C-alpha cells in the first residue's frame, strides 16, 4: 500500500501558532501577510529550507489548523516542496541515491512516512520563525524605500540574500 502526503489537516501549535497569528488573520487580508493560512503553510517550509532552519513543535498553548480542503488545493506544489526537502535535507546522513529514493519512490513504511512528514514540518516551523523575524520583528532602516513597515518588510524579504 502507498503512503500519501498532504491528505490531512495540519495543526500548528504553541509559539508557532502565536507567530502565525501575528502574520495572518482569518478573512482580514489588511491585517495579514498571507491571504490564507495554507499560503503561509506552503511558504514557510521553503523559507525554512532556504535558511536551513528547522524547529520542533512547541506544545504550549495555542493552536491553528490548516484545513484539509486548502491543503488539497495546493497538494501538487506541496509535493514538490516535500520532494525538494527530502532531496536537499542533509540532516539524516543519507547518500544521494538514498535521498532520491526517499524523494521519488515514496515511503514504504509508516515510520518512513511519519519521519518525512515531520521533517517537512520541522522546516515549516523553522520557516515560520524566520518569516516572523523578517516580517513582524524587523524595523525599517534608512535603506528601505517604503515607509509602511509591512510593505517595506515584504519587499526587503525579496531582497534578502540569506533567505
Amino acid at each position, binding site marked *: 500500500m502507498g503512503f500519501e502526503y498532504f491528505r490531512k489537516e495540519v495543526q500548528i501549535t504553541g509559539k508557532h501558532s502565536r507567530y502565525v497569528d501575528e502574520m495572518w488573520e482569518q478573512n482580514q487580508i*489588511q491585517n495579514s501577510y498571507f491571504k490564507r493560512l495554507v499560503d503561509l503553510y506552503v511558504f514557510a517550509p521553503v523559507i525554512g*529550507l532556504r535558511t536551513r532552519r528547522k524547529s520542533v513543535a512547541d506544545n504550549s498553548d495555542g493552536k491553528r489548523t490548516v484545513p484539509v480542503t486548502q491543503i488539497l488545493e495546493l497538494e*501538487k506544489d506541496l509535493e514538490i516542496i516535500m*520532494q525538494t526537502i527530502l532531496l*536537499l535535507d542533509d540532516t539524516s546522513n543519507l547518500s544521494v541515491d538514498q535521498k532520491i529514493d526517499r524523494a521519488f519512490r515514496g515511503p514504504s513504511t509508516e515510520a518512513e512516512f511519519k519521519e518525512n512528514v515531520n521533517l517537512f514540518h520541522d522546516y515549516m516551523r523553522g520557516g515560520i520563525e524566520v518569516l516572523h523575524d523578517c516580517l513582524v520583528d524587523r524595523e525599517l532602516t534608512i535603506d528601505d524605500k517604503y515607509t509602511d513597515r509591512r510593505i517595506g518588510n*515584504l519587499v526587503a524579504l525579496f531582497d534578502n540574500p540569506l*533567505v
Partner: protein
Amino acid sequence: MKFTQLKMVNFMRYKGTNILDFSCNPEKNVTVVLGENTAGKTTIAQAFRWALYGELITTQYNDTKDISVLNNELLGEMGPNDYRDVVVEIDMEHEEKKYHLLRKATFSRKFPKYIARQEYEKLAMSIKEKNVGSTTLHDNAGDINGKNKGIVDEIISELLPKSLSRYFLFDGERWSDEKNKKTDIKESVYAIMGISPIKLMKMHLNELGTYGRNSVVKQLKGKLTGSGDEYQKINENLQYYLSKIEISQNKISEATKNMDYFKEKIDESESILNANKTIELDQQKVKALARDKDNNEKYMKSYYADIITSFSKSYTYFAAPLLEEVINILKNVDLYGKDIPNITNSTIDYIIKNEQCICGHKVVKDSYEYQVLMKLKQVIPPMAIGTLVGNYQKELRGWYAKSNEIFQTVKEKANLYQGEKFSFEDNENEIEKTNKRIDGKINFQQERLKMEANKKNKKSEEDKIRIETNNIDDFKNKAKIYEDQISKYQDKSIQNARIEKKIVYAEKLYETASKIYKKSELNILNELNDIIKKNFEIMFNEKDKYAKLEDDYEIKLYYNRVNNMDGYSQMEAYGLSEGEKIAKNFVFIVSIMELANIKKNDSECVAQTLPLVLDGPFSKLSSVNIELIAQVLPKTADQVIIFMLDKDWEHSKLEKYTGAKFAVLKEKEQNFAHIEKIY
C-alpha cells in the same frame, strides 16, 4: 519746556536704578543715548510715555498681556505675597518752575492665584517756584476729602498734552504711522502754533452751544427785554425754534452715538464673517481633502490586497534558487540506471499471475523467485523514476521562470501603495492644519443676521441725522427771522442800551478773532508749506520730489515737473518706500517745530516750544540723510533727546551739539540693561 532728568527704577528692561541727566545747555542742547538693537533704547521712550500718560506703546508686542512695566527678572523672583515697586520719575523745567513727576506701580503675587499683577499705582507731582523756593505737592488721587482728583493729569495735559505727544515723543512706529486722524493732526498743529486760544475765544464769543446759545453774544441778546403782545409772540416763536434746534441737535448727537455703535457692531460682524469666509472655504477644503484621503485609503487597501495575494504565491520565487541545488545533486546520478528498462509494476503483476517468468522459470507463490519479484515490485514505481525526477525538475523550472514576474508585481504594487501612502499622509497633514484654523463653534448664519439687523439700525440712525440736520437748517432760518423781528419790539430802556453796547463790543471782538483765526489758519498752512519744502530739500537732498501739506493737513509727495512744458500740474508720488515715509513725517515734525519757534514771539499767537524725544529715527535712512537731518534737529527744538544705534552716531555728526552722552549696556548673560554716562 525742557526735561532735566529721567530716573527709572526696575522699569521694564532696567533692573535697579538708572538715571539720565539731560543737557539743558542752549549751545549743546542734544542728549544722546547710544545702544545696539534690542539693548533697551526704546524702553527709555516707553518710560517717558508711561510716566506722563500711564500707557505704553504696544504695537511691537504680539500680545499686550505679555508686557509688564516691572522688570521681568524681578517679576520672576517674586515669591507669594511679595511686593515690588516700579518707579519712573521725570524732572522738567518750564517758565521759572521746576516740576518733579513720579509714577509708581506696585506689583504683588497674591493669594489665591499667585499671579503677579499690578495692585496700586501712584502719580504725584511737586512744583517748585524757582524764585520763591516754595514747593507745592500734588497727588493725582486727590486730597483726603477726595478733592482735586486727577490734578496731576491736568497739569501734565497743560504742559505736555497727550494729543501733542506725537510731536515731541517719537517712539517706534510713529514714523510711518498712517492711522492718525487728519483732524487730530490739524488740531495739534494749531495747539502748537498757539492759535487754539483764538479759536476758543471765537467760540466763546459767538459759537458756543447749540446755535451759539451759550456764547457771549447770544447770552447778552437773551438779556434784552421787550414788551407788548407782538414782542411776546415773536419771542415765544423764537424760543420755540431755538428749543427745536436744541432738540434736533440732541437727536443728532444721540443718533450719531447709535450710528457709531452700530457701525462698530457691523465691523465686528464683518471681521468675524471675513475670517469665517476663510473658515467656510477651509471647511470645504477639509471635506475635499477627507474625500481624497478616503480614496487614498481605498487604493492603499486594494494595493495591499494585491501585494498579499501575489506574495502568498511567491513561495515559488523563494523556492526557485533551490533548483540550482537540485540540479547539482542530480547531475551526476544516472537516473535511468536505477530502473529496469521498461519494467513496471504491471510487468511483475503479469508474471505472478501466469506463475511463469519470461525466461521460462516457474514462479510458485512463496517460492524464492516469487519473493524476489515481490521485493522488486516494492521499488519499481508505477512510473519510471527518471520520468518522475524529470517531471519534478520541469515543475521547479517553471517556478524559477515565473519567480521574477511575481517579484516585479509585488514591487510595482508596493510602489503604488507608497505613492498613495504619501498622498494619504499629505492629505492628513493638510486636514489637521486646516482644522486647526477652523473654529467650528461660530454660527455664521446667526452672525450674518445680526450684521444685517445692525446695518438696518445704522441706516435708520443715518436717516434720523439727515432729517434732523435738515430740520435744524429750517429752524435756524425761522429763528433768524424772529431774531431780526424781535429787535423792533425790544424796550428802549437804558439797561437794554447798555446790553446792546456790550453786544456790539462782543460782536466786534468776535469779528476780529475770526479774522485773526482765519488769517492764522491760512498763514500757518502757507508758512508751514514753505518750511516743509525747504526742509525736504535740505534734509533729503531731494530733487525729483517735493513735499506739500494739503488743506486737510495731509502731507504728500509730488514729482517735480521736468520742464514747464509738462502737461501735468501735480503728479503725486505713490508707493513710498519705508525710508520716504519716515522722511515725509520727519520733515513734517521738524517743520512744525521750526515754525513754532518762529511764532514764539508772535503778538497774536502764543506758540509752544517742546523738547524732542526721538527713538531710533535713523535706522532706515542712508548715512547722507542721517547727517542732513541730524544737523537740522538742534536748531529746530530747544532740547533734543535722541536714542540711536552706535553705527548711526558718527554719520549724524551731532557731537558738537551734544551736551550729554549715554550708552545702554546689556551683558550677554544678563537679561536686563543699564545706562552708563559717557559725559
